[in-house]
């Protein structure tokens, strides 16, 4: 018997990578999955934050896909290394701050390093020519293969027939004839293949595997970079961008105000790292201050936060302000009127 060949499949949690992996498994290849956590991945986090989302099914799609396939899944934390990809993408950004092509190259490169370390033979992805305007085009396919260093060890089972033969095909580890020639934006071929393989309950590819494709999120991230004068970020920054109302009354600071209880609870976890304000006399949200503030700023922020509390129509609202050193003192303010909050404060 010939040696069993081993492939690692990039598993995003969407349908395409699920199908690609199954098609190769069905050819007798041992497949394991790899999933990359950039810090911007949508699933996972958000459900923990917003109260209204807490009843939604808390499913990590990549884990779910691996379970459907009966394969092992390795989740790689690439948060730190990803900064380079995001802040300086050679191939630029897509519609928002999504550096999809650089991101693909990076992930395939990491997968290539992984197979070399683990003694696997090749890499598979669910890419389809023409599926995505930026990263999945006829021209980008060789770019990903070349720049990642994976070259002909990278096999895309769903569109392999439209691409030059790869090593696993040439060597006869997989039968090219049983691979596919999908192309274009239509999802129909994938859905038909899913049905024929008996998959029903897969995650719908709503275009959102990461926050970087989200317009609102991209605006907030750009604002952060601009205010700091550099494109750097920490894990806390990118988490906080997912939560609350962000208002910037000045270049020196912004205010993050929880929109509901779930967000207030989430922000609680960050209190130690930020000056913050909590309404005392009325029900109200927790607000964090990101940046440097003067005494005058604190008064203004107090009035702003009061506006979002249940005391918004009261003559006076009492709040507690805690500075970075942990010292708390009382603020008494008149809540801002709606017209006092310029529209462009809201990021």
């Amino acid at each position: 018997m010939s040696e069993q060949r081993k492939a690692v499949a990039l598993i995003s949690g969407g349908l395409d990578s699920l199908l690609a992996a199954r098609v190769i498994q069905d050819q007798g290849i041992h497949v394991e999955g790899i999933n990359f956590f950039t810090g911007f991945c949508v699933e996972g986090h958000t459900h923990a934050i917003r109260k209204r989302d807490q009843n939604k099914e808390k499913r990590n799609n990549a884990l779910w896909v691996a379970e459907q396939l009966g394969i092992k899944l390795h989740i790689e934390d690439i948060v730190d290394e990803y900064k380079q990809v995001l802040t300086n993408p050679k191939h630029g950004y897509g519609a928002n701050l999504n550096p999809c092509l650089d991101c693909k190259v990076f992930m395939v490169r990491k997968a290539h390093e992984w197979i070399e370390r683990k003694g696997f033979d090749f890499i598979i992805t669910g890419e389809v020519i023409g599926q995505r305007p930026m990263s999945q085009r006829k021209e980008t396919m060789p770019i990903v293969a070349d720049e990642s260093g994976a070259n002909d060890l990278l096999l895309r089972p769903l569109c392999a027939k439209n691409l030059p033969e790869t090593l696993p095909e040439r060597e006869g580890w997989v039968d090219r004839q049983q691979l596919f020639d999908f192309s274009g934006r239509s999802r129909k071929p994938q859905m038909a293949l899913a049905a024929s393989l008996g998959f029903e309950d897969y995650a719908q590819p709503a275009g959102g595997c990461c926050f970087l494709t989200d317009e609102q999120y991209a605006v907030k991230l750009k604002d952060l970079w601009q205010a700091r004068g550099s494109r750097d970020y920490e894990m806390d920054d990118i988490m906080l961008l997912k939560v609350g109302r962000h208002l910037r009354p000045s270049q020196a600071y912004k205010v993050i105000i929880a929109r509901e209880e779930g967000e207030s609870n989430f922000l609680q976890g960050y209190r130690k790292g930020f000056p913050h304000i909590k309404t005392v006399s009325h029900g109200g949200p927790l607000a964090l201050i990101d940046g440097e503030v003067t005494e005058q700023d604190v008064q203004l922020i107090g009035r702003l936060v009061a506006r979002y509390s249940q005391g918004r129509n009261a003559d006076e609202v009492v709040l507690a302000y805690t500075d970075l050193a942990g010292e708390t003192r009382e603020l008494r303010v008149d809540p801002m009127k709606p017209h006092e909050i310029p529209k462009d404060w809201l990021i």
Partner: protein
Amino acid sequence: MKRHQIDCRRLLCPMPVIKVQNAIEDLPAGTLVEAICTDPGALNDIPAWSRINGHRLVETRTDDGEYIVVVEVADE
């Protein structure tokens, strides 16, 4: 039996899973790994990851706002 505690407080999924996974890589079979988490998603994700990778889920419990998941490391 050896117990190995992992503090995953404040970490959001999938970070708790990644921490458990990376810890298990270096631990001998039979070790009990106890992850203390604050993201309720961990109650689903760590067991799912364990099932997939062949490790045994020993228990999950909720304790004063913290979610605790215990996994026994399997043989490679």
